[in-house]
């Protein structure tokens, strides 16, 4: 917690943790252990593998958009690493529609598939502005979308977690699934960049 932007909150959390430990409700270091377990294996490489499979296998892509939790199990991934399985909602970008994900209330994020979230994802500037002016925010990320492309913003305001399948780049017909996964970036999986 040492790098939390609010030192008041940090101090309070440390105090509560110490009280819970002194009363035997928590083992020493139990919270760190639980956080490590939750983060273990979480990496944008996982989301990239899912996106690449969706590019090469239309049947998988269809299952992924209809029932993401079931589909990612085919690749050995799961959203059940926390206290309970989280519902995953996957949306796919097309020439007509671009999707971008935000959590306006806090910073909900699919850690198992994307690893820890980037700092900008948690910033008030991103969270407050992308719902109002996504085209402008995406332009600041260097993504200029054609006027005809509709933008859909998804606010992770409740229990689901979200991932975007970016558009497959042109000229990649000859690449293997593994090579395709290597093209997919974390920003691409959030919707703030093209691939």
């Amino acid at each position, binding site marked *: 917690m040492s790098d939390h932007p609010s030192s008041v909150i940090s101090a309070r959390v440390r105090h509560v943790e110490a009280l819970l430990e002194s009363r035997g409700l928590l083992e020493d270091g139990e919270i760190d252990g639980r956080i490590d377990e939750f983060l273990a294996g979480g990496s944008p490489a996982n989301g990239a593998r899912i996106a690449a499979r969706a590019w090469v296998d239309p049947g998988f892509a269809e299952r992924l958009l209809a029932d993401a939790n079931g589909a990612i199990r085919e690749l050995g991934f799961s959203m059940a690493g926390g206290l309970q399985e989280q519902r995953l909602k996957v949306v796919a970008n097309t020439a007509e529609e671009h999707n971008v994900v935000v959590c306006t209330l806090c910073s909900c994020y699919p850690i198992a598939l994307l690893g820890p979230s980037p700092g900008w994802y948690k910033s008030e500037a991103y969270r407050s502005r992308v719902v109002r002016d996504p085209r402008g925010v995406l332009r600041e990320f260097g993504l200029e979308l054609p006027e005809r492309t509709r933008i859909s913003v998804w*606010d992770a305001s409740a*229990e689901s977690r979200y991932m975007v399948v970016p558009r497959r780049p042109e000229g990649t017909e000859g690449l293997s699934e593994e090579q395709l996964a290597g093209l997919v970036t974390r920003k691409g999986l959030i919707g703030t960049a093209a691939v």
Partner: protein
Amino acid sequence: MADLAPGMRVRTRTTDPDGHTRLPRYVRGAVGVLVEEAGRHPLADDRARGRAGAPQPVWHVRFAAADLFGSGAHTVTVELWADYLIPIEEHP
């Protein structure tokens, strides 16, 4: 109250509770369309107050940016508990 179903138009509540809620301020009182059910969960407001609540449907609700902010051609899809939503009676 009518059962919620995809395609139904709903208005969100305008209540401003003292404690935790997961009805974002920017969608309060706005009209949106139900897209898809997103599972069932106890109301976050109750859980934050230590109250046991029965699981209820949570919905992806799509709003036109112009209805939320007065401008913008995009949509914003927000995930909202059924308790936050009032179905709009359609008058044929």
